[in-house]
């Protein structure tokens, strides 16, 4: 999954009809919120709190979708699904995957917020 591009910026910009301000607004919100989201997921994993895990993974999936960040969406979807199906054995690994993909996505988004859109 690491081989996949972290997000499809062109597709995302197409969704927003080229509205860069809207993209930046959402990116800033994601950057602001993702550390807390990851912390909540971490705690829920440790506590085996499946309802919270499913809910947080679902929200994360929706947010990542806005940026057409397919690897993060896929990882979050997998976590949501395994939480719903109580597939506890795979959960730790998937949790790590989610963590990694969210880090990749936030790095990419931070780059755009700070340095502007790639030419």
């Amino acid at each position, binding site marked *: 999954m690491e081989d996949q591009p972290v997000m499809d910026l062109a597709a995302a910009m*197409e*969704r*927003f*009809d080229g*509205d860069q*301000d*809207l993209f*930046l*607004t*959402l990116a*800033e*919100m*994601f950057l602001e*919120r993702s550390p807390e989201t990851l912390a909540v997921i971490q705690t829920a994993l440790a506590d085996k709190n499946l309802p919270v895990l499913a*809910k947080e993974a*679902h*929200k994360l*999936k*929706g*947010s990542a*979708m*806005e940026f057409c960040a397919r690897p993060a969406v896929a990882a979050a*979807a997998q976590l949501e699904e395994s939480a719903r199906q109580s597939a506890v054995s795979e959960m730790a690994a998937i949790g790590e995957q989610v963590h990694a993909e969210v880090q990749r996505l936030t790095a990419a988004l931070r780059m755009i917020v700070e340095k502007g859109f790639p030419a």
Partner: protein
Amino acid sequence: MNPVSGAADVSEPAPRIVDKPLTGKAAEPVPVILLVDDDEITRISMAGRLKRLGYRVIEAGDGVAGLAAIRAQRPDLVILDWMMPGLDGPSVCEAVRADRELRSSQVVLMTAHDQPEQIAEGLSRGADDFLSKAASKQEVLARVQASLRSSALVREIERTRDDLDRSHRLLSAKQAELESELQSAADFMRAQLPLPGMPAPGVSMQWAYQPSLALGGDLFQVSAWGSETLGLYILDASGHGVAAALRAVALMSFLREDNLAKAVGSFDPGAIVTEANRRFPLTQDGEYFTLWVGRLHLPSRTLSYAAAGHSGALLHSLQGASQWLSSASLPLGFDPTIAFDSATAQLQPRDRLYLLSDGIYEAPSPTGELWGRDRLQATLERHRTHTLAHSIGDTMTTARQWLGGDIFPDDVALLGIEVLDSSGSAKEKS
């Protein structure tokens, strides 16, 4: 850097319209879309995208706030996230469908993945359509436009229905008013008819009257003309309803005793009918009257009478044979130059004289056979030993039995007078 709108605020329409969902009539108002999603990122994203498409967007941060906004703002379209804390999307759908006022709202459920079983559940719980969170700009536009078209149609239907309801209420009120006026007119007509009883000393009188509509074109009267004579007539205005009734009242006014003295200068039935014939020509619509006028000299019990096309008088004699008092003649108004002559008949004590409209003997049986004058006469004669009131009541009952119903196709009038025995004659009674 960008202000982030909070839940349930009202966003301004986008200043720029990039696609053409709203082109067309310039006066058309901007459609209002309510977006309900607890996740800020998704909500702001979708709101931004919808605004760029030219729609006005209202936002709500959960199901309860969403339901309140639907009620308060009546948006043209509601886009609902499926998963929300508290009231989730399908539950909001159900609440909308259960509410009489909101029932017809257009609701689209937003999901992260379109699984068939989820779609089936959403539809069964009241969603009109689905929108994927991953949808492209083109798909969002297409779905929103389709939903707004449905919404506009539903609202059009509701407006039409409301207009129809209003028209129906107005018509009902108007109809009630007309019916009440008709009833007043019918009451007035009925008030013109004589009171049953003793119109003159030594004469008793009864009648039955059943107009085919609320208003009839038949009228009859029995009243004293001077101290020794009794005037009586029955008239039938052709047609039915208000027009016939008005014309009947006009002829009735002509036949009032004081008017006859002035207009005819005589109480001779032939002279009266001749003058009426002159004064009441055929109408432009071809309507006319038939009329029978009689004058009974009480001391001698001599009846003189004249008829214009009216065949409705039967003398039921206790001694001899019954006799129809009519002559072959035109109705009023067909030829203003003709003269009508009086004929006479001699009544004996306890003889009965009936005036009647053709509606009674022309009553059809269910197979279409008319009752006929012979059956009417036989029925009246059978009741010889009963009182006059009974005789008339029972004859009406027999006619209804022949008809097989209560509503005669024509106005029905049956009036009877009986000349009392000499022992109960004028001087002793008064």
